[in-house]
Protein backbone atom coordinates (compact mmCIF):
# COMPACT_ATOMS: atom_id res chain seq x y z
CA UNK A 1 0.00 0.00 0.00
CA UNK A 2 1.49 3.30 -1.07
CA UNK A 3 1.57 6.55 0.86
CA UNK A 4 -1.26 7.84 -1.24
CA UNK A 5 -3.74 5.20 -0.09
CA UNK A 6 -2.60 5.50 3.49
CA UNK A 7 -3.14 9.25 3.41
CA UNK A 8 -6.52 8.71 1.85
CA UNK A 9 -7.58 6.29 4.57
CA UNK A 10 -6.37 8.71 7.23
CA UNK A 11 -8.34 11.45 5.54
CA UNK A 12 -11.56 9.46 5.78
CA UNK A 13 -10.83 8.86 9.44
CA UNK A 14 -10.35 12.57 10.12
CA UNK A 15 -13.38 13.69 8.11
CA UNK A 16 -15.52 16.10 10.10
CA UNK A 17 -12.94 16.41 12.86
CA UNK A 18 -11.53 19.74 13.90
CA UNK A 19 -8.07 19.07 12.55
CA UNK A 20 -9.36 17.94 9.15
CA UNK A 21 -8.37 21.12 7.24
CA UNK A 22 -4.80 20.91 8.45
CA UNK A 23 -4.59 17.30 7.34
CA UNK A 24 -6.29 17.93 4.01
CA UNK A 25 -3.79 20.68 3.23
CA UNK A 26 -0.92 18.25 3.53
CA UNK A 27 -2.77 15.67 1.51
CA UNK A 28 -3.61 17.92 -1.44
CA UNK A 29 -0.15 19.40 -1.39
CA UNK A 30 1.34 15.96 -2.03
CA UNK A 31 -1.31 14.30 -4.18
CA UNK A 32 -4.36 14.99 -6.25
CA UNK A 33 -7.31 14.20 -3.99
CA UNK A 34 -9.58 11.33 -4.92
CA UNK A 35 -12.65 13.56 -5.00
CA UNK A 36 -11.73 15.29 -8.26
CA UNK A 37 -14.13 14.85 -11.12
CA UNK A 38 -13.13 12.09 -13.51
CA UNK A 39 -15.94 12.22 -16.03
CA UNK A 40 -18.67 14.41 -17.38
CA UNK A 41 -18.80 17.74 -19.11
CA UNK A 42 -16.60 19.81 -16.84
CA UNK A 43 -13.80 22.11 -17.78
CA UNK A 44 -10.67 20.53 -16.39
CA UNK A 45 -7.42 22.42 -16.27
CA UNK A 46 -4.11 21.73 -14.63
CA UNK A 47 -3.51 25.30 -13.51
CA UNK A 48 -5.33 25.38 -10.19
CA UNK A 49 -4.18 27.66 -7.40
CA UNK A 50 -1.55 25.20 -6.26
CA UNK A 51 0.02 24.90 -9.72
CA UNK A 52 -0.09 28.67 -10.22
CA UNK A 53 1.75 29.19 -6.97
CA UNK A 54 4.30 26.50 -7.77
CA UNK A 55 5.01 28.09 -11.16
CA UNK A 56 5.80 31.39 -9.49
CA UNK A 57 8.04 29.62 -7.00
CA UNK A 58 9.86 27.95 -9.89
CA UNK A 59 10.46 31.40 -11.36
CA UNK A 60 11.82 32.54 -7.99
CA UNK A 61 14.28 29.68 -7.42
CA UNK A 62 17.03 31.18 -9.68
CA UNK A 63 16.80 34.44 -7.74
CA UNK A 64 17.10 32.53 -4.46
CA UNK A 65 20.15 30.59 -5.64
CA UNK A 66 21.75 33.72 -6.98
CA UNK A 67 21.00 35.48 -3.69
CA UNK A 68 22.77 32.70 -1.79
CA UNK A 69 25.93 33.00 -3.88
CA UNK A 70 25.78 36.79 -3.89
CA UNK A 71 25.54 36.89 -0.09
CA UNK A 72 28.85 35.07 0.14
CA UNK A 73 30.42 37.03 -2.70
CA UNK A 74 29.54 40.42 -1.20
CA UNK A 75 30.71 39.34 2.24
CA UNK A 76 34.12 38.07 1.17
CA UNK A 77 34.62 40.88 -1.34
CA UNK A 78 33.90 43.48 1.32
CA UNK A 79 36.56 41.91 3.52
CA UNK A 80 39.23 41.07 0.93
CA UNK A 81 38.46 43.64 -1.74
CA UNK A 82 36.71 43.00 -5.05
CA UNK A 83 38.65 40.73 -7.42
CA UNK A 84 40.40 42.68 -10.18
CA UNK A 85 39.69 40.29 -13.04
CA UNK A 86 36.27 38.99 -12.09
CA UNK A 87 35.25 35.62 -13.46
CA UNK A 88 31.94 34.06 -12.53
CA UNK A 89 33.20 30.52 -12.05
CA UNK A 90 36.29 31.49 -10.13
CA UNK A 91 35.03 34.21 -7.83
CA UNK A 92 31.27 33.86 -7.69
CA UNK A 93 30.23 30.21 -7.84
CA UNK A 94 32.43 28.87 -5.10
CA UNK A 95 31.82 26.60 -2.13
CA UNK A 96 32.77 29.36 0.29
CA UNK A 97 30.19 31.73 -1.16
CA UNK A 98 27.55 29.01 -1.26
CA UNK A 99 28.18 27.87 2.29
CA UNK A 100 28.06 31.38 3.77
CA UNK A 101 24.97 32.23 1.73
CA UNK A 102 23.25 29.02 2.71
CA UNK A 103 23.69 29.49 6.44
CA UNK A 104 22.46 33.09 6.27
CA UNK A 105 19.67 32.89 3.68
CA UNK A 106 18.11 29.49 4.39
CA UNK A 107 17.16 30.38 8.00
CA UNK A 108 15.23 33.35 6.57
CA UNK A 109 13.37 31.01 4.23
CA UNK A 110 12.65 28.50 6.99
CA UNK A 111 11.38 31.15 9.43
CA UNK A 112 9.26 32.78 6.75
CA UNK A 113 7.58 29.51 5.74
CA UNK A 114 7.40 28.13 9.26
CA UNK A 115 5.68 31.10 10.89
CA UNK A 116 3.44 31.84 7.92
CA UNK A 117 2.23 28.28 7.45
CA UNK A 118 1.62 27.75 11.17
CA UNK A 119 -0.63 30.83 11.18
CA UNK A 120 -2.41 29.65 8.03
CA UNK A 121 -3.02 26.24 9.60
CA UNK A 122 -4.29 27.77 12.86
CA UNK A 123 -6.72 30.03 11.01
CA UNK A 124 -7.91 27.18 8.82
CA UNK A 125 -8.62 25.01 11.87
CA UNK A 126 -10.41 27.82 13.74
CA UNK A 127 -12.51 28.88 10.79
CA UNK A 128 -13.05 25.33 9.58
CA UNK A 129 -12.09 25.99 5.98
CA UNK A 130 -9.38 24.37 3.90
CA UNK A 131 -5.84 25.72 4.07
CA UNK A 132 -5.22 27.92 1.05
CA UNK A 133 -2.04 27.82 -0.95
CA UNK A 134 -1.66 31.60 -0.97
CA UNK A 135 1.22 31.58 1.45
CA UNK A 136 3.46 29.41 -0.72
CA UNK A 137 4.55 32.34 -2.88
CA UNK A 138 4.54 34.93 -0.09
CA UNK A 139 6.78 32.68 1.98
CA UNK A 140 9.32 32.56 -0.82
CA UNK A 141 9.10 36.27 -1.66
CA UNK A 142 9.70 37.46 1.89
CA UNK A 143 13.27 36.17 2.36
CA UNK A 144 14.21 37.56 -1.04
CA UNK A 145 13.19 41.16 -0.25
CA UNK A 146 14.78 41.63 3.17
CA UNK A 147 18.39 42.54 4.00
CA UNK A 148 20.60 39.55 4.62
CA UNK A 149 21.19 40.14 8.33
CA UNK A 150 17.55 40.69 9.34
CA UNK A 151 17.21 39.11 12.82
CA UNK A 152 15.03 36.03 12.62
CA UNK A 153 12.70 37.08 15.44
CA UNK A 154 12.00 40.37 13.62
CA UNK A 155 11.16 38.43 10.50
CA UNK A 156 8.88 36.15 12.51
CA UNK A 157 7.03 39.11 14.06
CA UNK A 158 6.68 40.78 10.69
CA UNK A 159 5.43 37.60 9.00
CA UNK A 160 2.85 37.12 11.76
CA UNK A 161 1.72 40.73 11.32
CA UNK A 162 1.61 40.52 7.55
CA UNK A 163 -0.31 37.26 7.41
CA UNK A 164 -2.83 38.16 10.14
CA UNK A 165 -3.39 41.89 9.52
CA UNK A 166 -2.57 41.91 5.82
CA UNK A 167 -4.48 38.81 4.81
CA UNK A 168 -6.43 36.77 7.35
CA UNK A 169 -8.56 39.63 8.71
CA UNK A 170 -9.82 40.27 5.20
CA UNK A 171 -10.82 36.63 4.78
CA UNK A 172 -7.66 34.87 3.63
CA UNK A 173 -6.18 34.18 0.21
CA UNK A 174 -7.94 35.97 -2.61
CA UNK A 175 -9.62 38.52 -0.33
CA UNK A 176 -6.62 40.59 0.70
CA UNK A 177 -6.34 44.21 -0.42
CA UNK A 178 -2.59 44.50 0.12
CA UNK A 179 0.12 42.18 -1.07
CA UNK A 180 1.08 40.24 2.10
CA UNK A 181 4.79 40.02 1.24
CA UNK A 182 4.97 43.78 0.82
CA UNK A 183 2.94 44.32 3.98
CA UNK A 184 5.62 42.31 5.78
CA UNK A 185 8.37 44.38 4.15
CA UNK A 186 6.64 47.64 5.00
CA UNK A 187 6.12 46.55 8.60
CA UNK A 188 9.82 45.74 8.93
CA UNK A 189 10.75 49.05 7.38
CA UNK A 190 8.62 51.17 9.70
CA UNK A 191 9.18 49.08 12.82
CA UNK A 192 12.92 48.50 12.65
CA UNK A 193 14.36 51.14 10.31
CA UNK A 194 17.92 50.70 11.58
CA UNK A 195 17.91 47.12 10.32
CA UNK A 196 16.33 47.95 6.99
CA UNK A 197 18.22 50.95 5.65
CA UNK A 198 21.62 52.56 5.68
CA UNK A 199 24.91 51.20 4.41
CA UNK A 200 25.46 48.54 7.05
CA UNK A 201 22.68 46.07 6.46
CA UNK A 202 23.25 44.81 2.93
CA UNK A 203 26.39 42.80 3.51
CA UNK A 204 26.54 39.95 6.01
CA UNK A 205 28.55 40.94 9.05
CA UNK A 206 28.71 44.68 8.38
CA UNK A 207 26.22 45.45 11.13
CA UNK A 208 28.38 43.66 13.70
CA UNK A 209 31.33 45.84 12.77
CA UNK A 210 33.38 43.30 10.84
CA UNK A 211 36.60 44.84 9.56
CA UNK A 212 38.48 44.60 6.28
CA UNK A 213 41.35 42.15 6.03
CA UNK A 214 44.53 43.63 7.44
CA UNK A 215 43.02 46.90 8.62
CA UNK A 216 40.69 48.33 11.21
CA UNK A 217 38.23 49.88 8.73
CA UNK A 218 34.74 48.55 9.22
CA UNK A 219 33.28 47.02 6.09
CA UNK A 220 30.31 48.70 4.52
CA UNK A 221 28.16 47.76 1.62
CA UNK A 222 26.26 50.69 0.34
CA UNK A 223 23.69 50.07 -2.35
CA UNK A 224 24.06 52.06 -5.55
CA UNK A 225 20.93 54.03 -4.71
CA UNK A 226 22.22 54.76 -1.23
CA UNK A 227 25.46 56.02 -2.75
CA UNK A 228 23.58 58.33 -5.12
CA UNK A 229 21.31 59.59 -2.35
CA UNK A 230 24.40 60.88 -0.55
CA UNK A 231 24.76 63.38 -3.38
CA UNK A 232 27.48 61.46 -5.23
CA UNK A 233 27.08 61.45 -8.99
CA UNK A 234 29.40 58.85 -10.50
CA UNK A 235 32.47 56.70 -9.91
CA UNK A 236 30.78 53.52 -8.83
CA UNK A 237 32.89 50.57 -8.04
CA UNK A 238 30.26 48.61 -9.97
CA UNK A 239 30.11 48.36 -13.74
CA UNK A 240 26.95 48.26 -15.82
CA UNK A 241 27.17 44.50 -16.25
CA UNK A 242 27.56 44.11 -12.46
CA UNK A 243 24.28 45.97 -12.06
CA UNK A 244 22.52 43.98 -14.76
CA UNK A 245 23.73 40.55 -13.65
CA UNK A 246 23.38 41.44 -10.01
CA UNK A 247 26.86 41.36 -8.44
CA UNK A 248 25.89 44.31 -6.23
CA UNK A 249 24.74 44.67 -2.62
CA UNK A 250 21.02 44.75 -1.98
CA UNK A 251 18.22 42.71 -0.49
CA UNK A 252 18.81 38.97 -0.76
CA UNK A 253 17.18 38.05 -4.06
CA UNK A 254 16.46 41.26 -5.88
CA UNK A 255 19.87 42.18 -7.28
CA UNK A 256 20.03 40.18 -10.49
CA UNK A 257 17.93 41.95 -13.10
CA UNK A 258 19.01 39.31 -15.60
CA UNK A 259 17.48 36.39 -13.67
CA UNK A 260 14.40 38.45 -12.84
CA UNK A 261 13.98 39.14 -16.53
CA UNK A 262 14.20 35.41 -17.28
CA UNK A 263 11.71 34.68 -14.49
CA UNK A 264 9.42 37.37 -15.85
CA UNK A 265 9.52 35.92 -19.35
CA UNK A 266 8.78 32.48 -17.91
CA UNK A 267 5.76 33.85 -16.05
CA UNK A 268 4.52 35.70 -19.13
CA UNK A 269 4.82 32.68 -21.39
CA UNK A 270 3.22 30.36 -18.87
CA UNK A 271 0.43 33.01 -18.69
CA UNK A 272 0.68 33.29 -14.91
CA UNK A 273 1.58 36.97 -14.73
CA UNK A 274 0.27 39.86 -16.78
CA UNK A 275 2.66 41.24 -19.40
CA UNK A 276 0.55 44.42 -19.50
CA UNK A 277 1.42 45.28 -15.90
CA UNK A 278 5.11 44.51 -16.38
CA UNK A 279 5.43 46.47 -19.60
CA UNK A 280 3.48 49.49 -18.42
CA UNK A 281 5.40 49.57 -15.12
CA UNK A 282 8.68 49.63 -17.06
CA UNK A 283 7.31 52.46 -19.22
CA UNK A 284 6.17 54.35 -16.13
CA UNK A 285 9.60 54.08 -14.51
CA UNK A 286 11.30 55.23 -17.72
CA UNK A 287 8.90 58.18 -18.02
CA UNK A 288 9.56 59.40 -14.49
CA UNK A 289 13.30 58.85 -14.95
CA UNK A 290 13.20 60.91 -18.16
CA UNK A 291 11.38 63.74 -16.40
CA UNK A 292 14.07 63.84 -13.70
CA UNK A 293 16.84 63.70 -16.30
CA UNK A 294 15.11 66.57 -18.11
CA UNK A 295 15.04 68.66 -14.95
CA UNK A 296 18.77 68.16 -14.56
CA UNK A 297 19.34 68.80 -18.26
CA UNK A 298 17.56 72.15 -18.17
CA UNK A 299 19.50 73.13 -15.07
CA UNK A 300 16.41 73.60 -12.93
CA UNK A 301 18.07 71.97 -9.97
CA UNK A 302 21.39 73.07 -8.46
CA UNK A 303 24.17 70.53 -8.04
CA UNK A 304 24.24 70.93 -4.28
CA UNK A 305 20.59 69.84 -4.00
CA UNK A 306 20.25 66.58 -2.10
CA UNK A 307 18.13 65.17 -4.91
CA UNK A 308 20.74 65.93 -7.57
CA UNK A 309 22.60 62.63 -7.28
CA UNK A 310 19.51 60.49 -7.88
CA UNK A 311 17.94 62.84 -10.43
CA UNK A 312 20.92 62.83 -12.76
CA UNK A 313 21.06 59.02 -12.72
CA UNK A 314 20.40 57.85 -16.31
CA UNK A 315 16.71 57.06 -16.56
CA UNK A 316 17.12 53.54 -17.90
CA UNK A 317 19.56 52.58 -15.17
CA UNK A 318 16.77 52.86 -12.60
CA UNK A 319 15.51 49.55 -13.96
CA UNK A 320 18.65 47.59 -13.15
CA UNK A 321 19.41 48.80 -9.62
CA UNK A 322 17.39 48.39 -6.45
CA UNK A 323 14.23 46.35 -6.17
CA UNK A 324 12.32 47.89 -9.05
CA UNK A 325 12.66 44.95 -11.44
CA UNK A 326 11.85 42.41 -8.72
CA UNK A 327 8.83 44.39 -7.59
CA UNK A 328 7.47 44.81 -11.10
CA UNK A 329 7.84 41.16 -12.08
CA UNK A 330 6.87 39.31 -8.92
CA UNK A 331 4.84 41.72 -6.78
CA UNK A 332 2.98 44.15 -9.01
CA UNK A 333 1.62 41.23 -11.03
CA UNK A 334 -0.05 39.60 -8.02
CA UNK A 335 -3.46 38.71 -9.49
CA UNK A 336 -5.32 39.24 -6.20
CA UNK A 337 -4.18 42.74 -5.35
CA UNK A 338 -3.65 44.12 -8.86
CA UNK A 339 -6.16 45.51 -11.33
CA UNK A 340 -8.33 42.96 -13.09
CA UNK A 341 -9.34 44.80 -16.26
CA UNK A 342 -6.93 45.05 -19.19
CA UNK A 343 -7.16 48.80 -19.47
CA UNK A 344 -6.88 49.02 -15.67
CA UNK A 345 -3.69 46.95 -15.77
CA UNK A 346 -2.04 49.51 -18.04
CA UNK A 347 -2.90 52.38 -15.69
CA UNK A 348 -2.04 50.37 -12.57
CA UNK A 349 1.33 49.25 -13.91
CA UNK A 350 2.28 52.62 -15.30
CA UNK A 351 1.60 54.36 -12.00
CA UNK A 352 3.61 51.74 -10.10
CA UNK A 353 6.69 52.41 -12.22
CA UNK A 354 6.12 56.15 -12.19
CA UNK A 355 5.65 56.41 -8.42
CA UNK A 356 8.46 53.97 -7.63
CA UNK A 357 11.06 56.18 -9.24
CA UNK A 358 9.48 59.32 -7.79
CA UNK A 359 9.52 57.96 -4.22
CA UNK A 360 13.01 56.60 -4.79
CA UNK A 361 14.31 60.08 -5.59
CA UNK A 362 12.35 62.07 -3.04
CA UNK A 363 12.37 59.70 -0.06
CA UNK A 364 14.81 61.32 2.35
CA UNK A 365 15.26 58.36 4.69
CA UNK A 366 15.58 55.49 2.33
CA UNK A 367 16.33 55.68 -1.38
CA UNK A 368 13.88 53.05 -2.54
CA UNK A 369 10.17 53.22 -3.15
CA UNK A 370 9.01 50.15 -4.99
CA UNK A 371 7.24 48.51 -2.08
CA UNK A 372 5.50 51.75 -1.11
CA UNK A 373 4.41 52.42 -4.70
CA UNK A 374 2.99 48.92 -5.13
CA UNK A 375 1.17 49.02 -1.79
CA UNK A 376 -0.35 52.39 -2.71
CA UNK A 377 -1.50 51.14 -6.08
CA UNK A 378 -2.88 47.95 -4.45
CA UNK A 379 -5.22 50.24 -2.56
CA UNK A 380 -6.21 52.08 -5.74
CA UNK A 381 -6.59 49.00 -7.95
CA UNK A 382 -10.33 48.49 -7.22
CA UNK A 383 -11.01 52.17 -7.92
CA UNK A 384 -9.19 51.95 -11.26
CA UNK A 385 -11.20 48.86 -12.17
CA UNK A 386 -14.43 50.57 -11.15
CA UNK A 387 -13.87 53.52 -13.49
CA UNK A 388 -12.69 51.31 -16.32
CA UNK A 389 -15.88 49.28 -16.06
CA UNK A 390 -18.10 52.37 -15.76
CA UNK A 391 -16.39 53.85 -18.82
CA UNK A 392 -17.07 50.68 -20.71
CA UNK A 393 -20.73 50.70 -19.66
CA UNK A 394 -21.12 54.33 -20.72
CA UNK A 395 -19.61 53.65 -24.12
CA UNK A 396 -21.94 50.76 -24.76
CA UNK A 397 -24.94 52.76 -23.56
CA UNK A 398 -24.04 55.44 -26.04
CA UNK A 399 -23.68 52.91 -28.81
CA UNK A 400 -27.06 51.50 -27.95
CA UNK A 401 -28.69 54.93 -27.96
CA UNK A 402 -27.39 55.73 -31.42
CA UNK A 403 -28.19 52.34 -32.87
CA UNK A 404 -31.35 51.87 -34.85
CA UNK A 405 -33.03 48.72 -33.74
CA UNK A 406 -35.51 47.31 -36.16
CA UNK A 407 -38.49 45.66 -34.52
CA UNK A 408 -38.90 41.99 -35.27
CA UNK A 409 -41.83 41.38 -37.50
CA UNK A 410 -43.15 38.64 -35.25
CA UNK A 411 -43.19 40.82 -32.12
CA UNK A 412 -45.51 43.51 -33.34
CA UNK A 413 -44.03 45.91 -30.85
CA UNK A 414 -40.30 46.21 -30.16
CA UNK A 415 -39.35 45.19 -26.67
CA UNK A 416 -37.59 47.78 -24.62
CA UNK A 417 -33.93 46.81 -24.70
CA UNK A 418 -31.89 46.68 -21.58
CA UNK A 419 -28.15 47.18 -21.57
CA UNK A 420 -26.23 44.22 -20.41
CA UNK A 421 -23.27 45.37 -18.49
CA UNK A 422 -19.98 44.00 -17.33
Amino acid at each position, binding site marked *: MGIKEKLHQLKLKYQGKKMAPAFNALHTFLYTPNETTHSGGHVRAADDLKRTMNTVIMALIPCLLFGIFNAGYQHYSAINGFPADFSVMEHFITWDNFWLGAITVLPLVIVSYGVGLIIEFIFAVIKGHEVEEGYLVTGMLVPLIVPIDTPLWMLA*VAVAFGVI*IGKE*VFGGTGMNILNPALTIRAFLF*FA*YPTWMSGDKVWVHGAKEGLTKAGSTDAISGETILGYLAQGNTSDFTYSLSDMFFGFIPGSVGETSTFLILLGGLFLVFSKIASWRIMLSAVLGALAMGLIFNGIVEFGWIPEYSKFYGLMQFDFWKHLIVGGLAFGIVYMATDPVTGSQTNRGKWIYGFLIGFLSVMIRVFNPGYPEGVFLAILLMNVFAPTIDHYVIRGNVRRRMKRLKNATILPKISDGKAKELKVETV
Partner: protein
Amino acid sequence: MALLSKKDANLILDPLADNNPITIQVLGICSALAITAELKASVVMAISVIFVLGIGNVVISLLRNVIPSKIRIIVQLIVVATLVIIVDQVLKAFAYELSKTLSVFVGLIITNCIIMGRFEAFALGNGPWKAFLDGIGNALGYGVILIIVGFFRELLGSGTLFGIPVLGDPIAKTGLYAIGYENNGFMIIPPAALIVVGIIIWVQRSRNKALIEEA
Protein backbone atom coordinates in the same frame (compact mmCIF):
# COMPACT_ATOMS: atom_id res chain seq x y z
CA MET B 1 -28.18 47.57 48.56
CA ALA B 2 -27.96 48.71 45.04
CA LEU B 3 -26.45 52.11 44.66
CA LEU B 4 -27.98 52.57 41.25
CA SER B 5 -31.11 51.08 39.76
CA LYS B 6 -30.51 48.53 37.03
CA LYS B 7 -31.47 51.01 34.33
CA ASP B 8 -29.09 53.64 35.70
CA ALA B 9 -26.28 51.14 36.05
CA ASN B 10 -26.71 50.20 32.41
CA LEU B 11 -26.17 53.84 31.45
CA ILE B 12 -22.65 53.50 32.78
CA LEU B 13 -21.92 49.88 31.91
CA ASP B 14 -23.26 49.74 28.36
CA PRO B 15 -20.78 52.18 26.84
CA LEU B 16 -17.94 50.30 28.51
CA ALA B 17 -18.46 47.24 26.36
CA ASP B 18 -21.38 46.52 24.08
CA ASN B 19 -22.02 50.11 23.07
CA ASN B 20 -18.50 51.45 23.28
CA PRO B 21 -18.15 54.86 21.63
CA ILE B 22 -14.85 53.96 19.95
CA THR B 23 -15.09 50.29 19.06
CA ILE B 24 -18.80 50.06 18.29
CA GLN B 25 -19.87 53.55 17.25
CA VAL B 26 -16.41 54.42 15.89
CA LEU B 27 -16.50 57.97 17.28
CA GLY B 28 -13.62 60.00 18.66
CA ILE B 29 -11.09 58.14 16.55
CA CYS B 30 -8.90 61.18 15.78
CA SER B 31 -7.76 61.70 19.34
CA ALA B 32 -7.44 57.96 19.90
CA LEU B 33 -4.93 57.88 17.04
CA ALA B 34 -3.08 61.05 17.92
CA ILE B 35 -2.29 60.92 21.61
CA THR B 36 -2.06 57.24 22.51
CA ALA B 37 1.66 56.85 21.87
CA GLU B 38 2.18 57.35 25.61
CA LEU B 39 0.12 55.87 28.41
CA LYS B 40 0.33 59.04 30.51
CA ALA B 41 -1.16 61.18 27.76
CA SER B 42 -3.93 58.63 27.27
CA VAL B 43 -4.84 58.69 30.95
CA VAL B 44 -4.89 62.50 31.10
CA MET B 45 -6.95 62.66 27.93
CA ALA B 46 -9.39 60.12 29.38
CA ILE B 47 -9.76 62.12 32.61
CA SER B 48 -10.26 65.36 30.66
CA VAL B 49 -13.01 63.83 28.57
CA ILE B 50 -14.70 62.35 31.65
CA PHE B 51 -14.73 65.82 33.21
CA VAL B 52 -15.97 67.61 30.10
CA LEU B 53 -18.62 65.08 29.17
CA GLY B 54 -19.86 64.47 32.73
CA ILE B 55 -20.39 68.16 33.52
CA GLY B 56 -21.38 69.14 29.99
CA ASN B 57 -24.14 66.54 29.87
CA VAL B 58 -25.56 67.83 33.20
CA VAL B 59 -25.46 71.46 32.04
CA ILE B 60 -27.15 70.71 28.74
CA SER B 61 -29.71 68.53 30.47
CA LEU B 62 -30.57 71.36 32.91
CA LEU B 63 -30.89 73.83 30.04
CA ARG B 64 -32.74 71.42 27.76
CA ASN B 65 -36.13 73.09 28.17
CA VAL B 66 -34.93 76.64 27.62
CA ILE B 67 -32.61 76.12 24.63
CA PRO B 68 -34.39 77.08 21.39
CA SER B 69 -33.86 74.10 19.12
CA LYS B 70 -32.68 76.27 16.22
CA ILE B 71 -29.57 77.43 18.05
CA ARG B 72 -28.95 74.37 20.22
CA ILE B 73 -25.70 73.45 18.45
CA ILE B 74 -24.26 76.87 19.24
CA VAL B 75 -25.27 76.57 22.88
CA GLN B 76 -23.73 73.11 23.07
CA LEU B 77 -20.51 74.43 21.57
CA ILE B 78 -20.33 77.23 24.12
CA VAL B 79 -20.80 74.80 27.00
CA VAL B 80 -18.19 72.36 25.75
CA ALA B 81 -15.76 75.14 24.81
CA THR B 82 -15.99 76.63 28.31
CA LEU B 83 -15.28 73.28 29.93
CA VAL B 84 -12.41 72.51 27.59
CA ILE B 85 -10.79 75.86 28.30
CA ILE B 86 -10.98 75.09 32.01
CA VAL B 87 -9.26 71.74 31.43
CA ASP B 88 -6.66 73.35 29.20
CA GLN B 89 -5.82 76.05 31.72
CA VAL B 90 -5.59 73.56 34.58
CA LEU B 91 -3.22 71.39 32.58
CA LYS B 92 -1.08 74.37 31.62
CA ALA B 93 -0.88 75.45 35.25
CA PHE B 94 -0.18 72.10 36.89
CA ALA B 95 1.22 69.81 34.19
CA TYR B 96 2.90 72.02 31.64
CA GLU B 97 5.06 69.34 30.03
CA LEU B 98 2.07 67.07 29.55
CA SER B 99 -0.05 69.85 28.10
CA LYS B 100 2.70 70.38 25.54
CA THR B 101 2.59 66.70 24.57
CA LEU B 102 -1.18 66.84 24.21
CA SER B 103 -0.84 70.15 22.33
CA VAL B 104 -3.93 70.93 20.27
CA PHE B 105 -5.70 67.73 21.17
CA VAL B 106 -7.03 69.12 24.43
CA GLY B 107 -8.57 71.98 22.46
CA LEU B 108 -9.86 69.52 19.96
CA ILE B 109 -11.97 67.79 22.62
CA ILE B 110 -14.49 70.46 21.52
CA THR B 111 -14.85 68.73 18.19
CA ASN B 112 -14.79 65.21 19.64
CA CYS B 113 -17.83 63.55 18.09
CA ILE B 114 -18.58 61.63 21.27
CA ILE B 115 -19.34 64.83 23.20
CA MET B 116 -21.64 66.48 20.70
CA GLY B 117 -23.16 63.06 20.05
CA ARG B 118 -24.10 62.50 23.69
CA PHE B 119 -25.43 66.08 24.04
CA GLU B 120 -27.65 65.64 21.02
CA ALA B 121 -28.69 62.05 21.58
CA PHE B 122 -29.06 61.90 25.33
CA ALA B 123 -28.73 65.11 27.37
CA LEU B 124 -31.37 66.99 25.38
CA GLY B 125 -33.99 64.38 26.25
CA ASN B 126 -33.17 63.24 29.79
CA GLY B 127 -32.90 64.57 33.32
CA PRO B 128 -29.60 65.71 34.85
CA TRP B 129 -28.88 62.59 36.95
CA LYS B 130 -29.36 60.23 33.99
CA ALA B 131 -27.42 62.60 31.73
CA PHE B 132 -24.57 62.64 34.24
CA LEU B 133 -24.40 58.84 34.38
CA ASP B 134 -24.56 58.61 30.60
CA GLY B 135 -21.77 61.18 30.25
CA ILE B 136 -19.53 59.41 32.72
CA GLY B 137 -20.26 56.03 31.13
CA ASN B 138 -19.45 57.12 27.60
CA ALA B 139 -16.34 59.00 28.64
CA LEU B 140 -15.21 55.93 30.59
CA GLY B 141 -15.81 53.72 27.56
CA TYR B 142 -13.69 56.12 25.53
CA GLY B 143 -11.02 56.27 28.23
CA VAL B 144 -10.76 52.49 28.62
CA ILE B 145 -9.97 52.05 24.94
CA LEU B 146 -7.51 54.95 25.03
CA ILE B 147 -5.70 53.38 27.95
CA ILE B 148 -5.58 49.91 26.38
CA VAL B 149 -4.22 51.36 23.13
CA GLY B 150 -1.78 53.59 25.02
CA PHE B 151 -0.58 50.62 27.07
CA PHE B 152 0.32 48.49 24.06
CA ARG B 153 1.75 51.34 22.01
CA GLU B 154 4.02 52.60 24.76
CA LEU B 155 5.09 49.12 25.87
CA LEU B 156 5.91 47.86 22.38
CA GLY B 157 6.99 51.16 20.89
CA SER B 158 9.16 52.62 23.62
CA GLY B 159 9.56 49.76 26.09
CA THR B 160 8.23 51.95 28.91
CA LEU B 161 5.00 52.42 30.90
CA PHE B 162 4.22 55.90 32.23
CA GLY B 163 7.73 56.76 31.12
CA ILE B 164 9.31 54.09 33.35
CA PRO B 165 11.44 51.52 31.51
CA VAL B 166 9.96 48.06 32.05
CA LEU B 167 11.78 45.99 29.44
CA GLY B 168 15.31 47.14 30.25
CA ASP B 169 17.55 49.85 28.90
CA PRO B 170 17.82 49.94 25.09
CA ILE B 171 21.12 51.87 25.13
CA ALA B 172 22.91 49.96 27.87
CA LYS B 173 21.42 46.71 26.50
CA THR B 174 19.95 45.31 29.70
CA GLY B 175 16.86 43.23 30.30
CA LEU B 176 15.15 42.09 27.11
CA TYR B 177 17.44 44.26 25.00
CA ALA B 178 20.40 42.12 26.01
CA ILE B 179 19.05 39.23 23.96
CA GLY B 180 18.54 41.31 20.83
CA TYR B 181 15.05 42.71 21.38
CA GLU B 182 14.36 46.12 19.84
CA ASN B 183 11.59 48.64 20.18
CA ASN B 184 9.03 48.58 17.42
CA GLY B 185 9.13 51.98 15.73
CA PHE B 186 5.89 51.22 13.94
CA MET B 187 3.95 51.43 17.21
CA ILE B 188 5.01 55.06 17.69
CA ILE B 189 3.34 56.31 14.52
CA PRO B 190 -0.44 56.95 14.50
CA PRO B 191 -1.39 54.24 11.96
CA ALA B 192 -0.41 51.67 14.59
CA ALA B 193 -3.22 52.98 16.82
CA LEU B 194 -5.67 52.29 14.03
CA ILE B 195 -4.47 48.71 13.86
CA VAL B 196 -4.56 48.25 17.65
CA VAL B 197 -8.11 49.65 17.76
CA GLY B 198 -8.96 47.31 14.88
CA ILE B 199 -7.65 44.33 16.83
CA ILE B 200 -9.69 45.36 19.90
CA ILE B 201 -12.80 45.53 17.71
CA TRP B 202 -11.95 42.12 16.29
CA VAL B 203 -11.53 40.55 19.74
CA GLN B 204 -14.72 42.18 21.00
CA ARG B 205 -16.78 40.96 18.06
CA SER B 206 -15.48 37.45 18.17
CA ARG B 207 -16.44 37.29 21.86
CA ASN B 208 -19.90 38.72 21.29
CA LYS B 209 -21.29 37.61 17.94
CA ALA B 210 -24.40 39.77 18.39
CA LEU B 211 -22.29 42.84 17.58
CA ILE B 212 -21.56 41.70 14.04
CA GLU B 213 -23.74 43.50 11.52
CA GLU B 214 -25.36 41.47 8.80
CA ALA B 215 -23.49 41.80 5.56
